[in-house]
């Protein structure tokens, strides 16, 4: 049964990608990309990657789509007719694709438990991590403990990307006099948003602190919390949103998250262990691991939240400036 679902979903994904090529209306392209992300999330669930599916659904279909729509608002929604020939790109793609297909023939069979990828470190993670780290979710154990150094790098990249966007576009100034903007006149949207936003924030907190036991964690929680405020900004206008969470606070939060993460590593250094070795954070190793993971997941969540929201603010401020002109 799982194989048939896999077959159908992947075919749908291919069709979506194909239709993106032929469409000229960029609004439709972006919407299709949202669908593409949701389909990918479904496939990830089917392939047992629940944490990844969670992330793809909130990031790919949520934040990416909003940012792309924001860009379209500034650059126009029609792709102009293409006057250069499609033959050469098609040829390049066919040759590369043919070579890659030839390469896949040597790939080990899909789903075989004896594949090389399943032999290396994975058995150790699967057998030992629930006892060693004390968490049932192995993805969190690997992400936050065994490969914490990697995740520190990824968090720093998110932070750096936010700095990049802010230096390109700049953050909005906090307006004292809140201008009437957004979708204020749509009463249904306003009431529904007021009801939903607290629930989204609550859910984000649940995902943040329950990530050790079920799917979730700092990355997803940060994105979901940012989505709540993005919804607020869309409905009540950017000036109102900057009253709730000021751009300056976001700048500080983005840095504080990375500092919490790296600081946890430094604390373990001072307790005469390796960088990001949480075993020494408490009297027994499992409790130490638990404290360490909660601390760094919190750091990740704060940075991702601040980075995503400040990126959105930067785009929204551009759009607002364009409307005023």
């Amino acid at each position, binding site marked *: 049964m799982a194989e048939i679902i*896999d077959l159908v979903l*992947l*075919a749908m*994904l291919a069709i979506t*990608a194909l239709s993106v090529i032929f469409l000229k209306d960029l609004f439709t*392209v*972006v919407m299709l990309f949202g669908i593409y992300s949701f389909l990918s999330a479904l496939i990830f669930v089917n*392939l*047992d*990657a*629940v*944490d*990844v599916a969670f*992330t*793809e659904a909130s990031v*790919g279909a949520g934040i990416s789509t909003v*940012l*792309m729509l924001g*860009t379209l608002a500034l*650059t*126009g929604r029609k*792709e102009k007719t293409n006057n250069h020939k499609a033959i050469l790109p098609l040829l*390049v*793609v066919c040759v*590369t694709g043919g070579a*890659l*297909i030839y390469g*896949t023939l040597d*790939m080990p069979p*899909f789903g*075989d*438990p004896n594949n090389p*990828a399943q032999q290396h*470190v*994975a058995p150790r993670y*699967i057998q030992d991590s629930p006892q060693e780290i004390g968490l049932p*979710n*192995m*993805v969190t*154990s*690997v*992400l936050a403990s065994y*490969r914490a150094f*990697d*995740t520190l790098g*990824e968090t720093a990249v*998110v932070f750096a*990307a936010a700095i990049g*966007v802010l230096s*390109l*576009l700049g953050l909005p100034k906090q307006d004292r006099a809140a201008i009437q903007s957004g979708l204020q006149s749509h009463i249904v949207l306003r009431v529904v948003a007021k009801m939903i936003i607290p629930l989204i924030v609550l859910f984000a907190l649940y995902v943040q602190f329950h990530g050790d036991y*079920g*799917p979730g964690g700092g*990355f997803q929680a940060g*994105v979901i919390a940012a989505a709540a405020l993005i919804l607020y900004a869309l409905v009540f206008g950017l000036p109102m949103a900057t009253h709730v969470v000021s751009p300056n606070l976001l700048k500080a939060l983005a840095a504080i998250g990375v500092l919490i993460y790296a600081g946890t590593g430094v604390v373990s250094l001072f307790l005469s262990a390796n960088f990001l070795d949480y075993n020494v954070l408490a009297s027994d190793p499992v409790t130490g691991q638990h404290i360490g993971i909660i601390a760094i997941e919190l750091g990740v969540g704060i940075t991702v939240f601040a980075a*995503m929201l400040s*990126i959105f603010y*930067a*785009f929204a401020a*551009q759009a607002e400036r364009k409307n005023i002109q």
Partner: protein
Amino acid sequence: MSFIVDHYNYWIVVFLMMAGFYIVIAANNLVKKIVGLNIFQTSVFMMYISIGKVTGGTAPIAAEGITTYSNPLPHVLILTAIVVGVATTAVGLALIVRIKRAYGTVEENEFEDKEDLI
């Protein structure tokens, strides 16, 4: 039949990758190029997750009575890659906004006579 089932996921991955690649090199509009890059990127995610799947396995969250789990390592790599992916996409989109402001267009063929603006 088993040959097809064994490689189907990888073929779709190659197809998606090439669809994304084609959009990147053939599309004229920069926003569409970014969509193409994202499709390319997602195809790589799909490949990693396909490699980590074990037939008969379940999600790598320890539970009683379950012995086979899929490989958690690709999940970790891709989970972080998705978030980094959206952050870098945002940088790309921000560059497009600046290009629009400097050149007045985001269509690649319209830059040709405006090169001295830099």
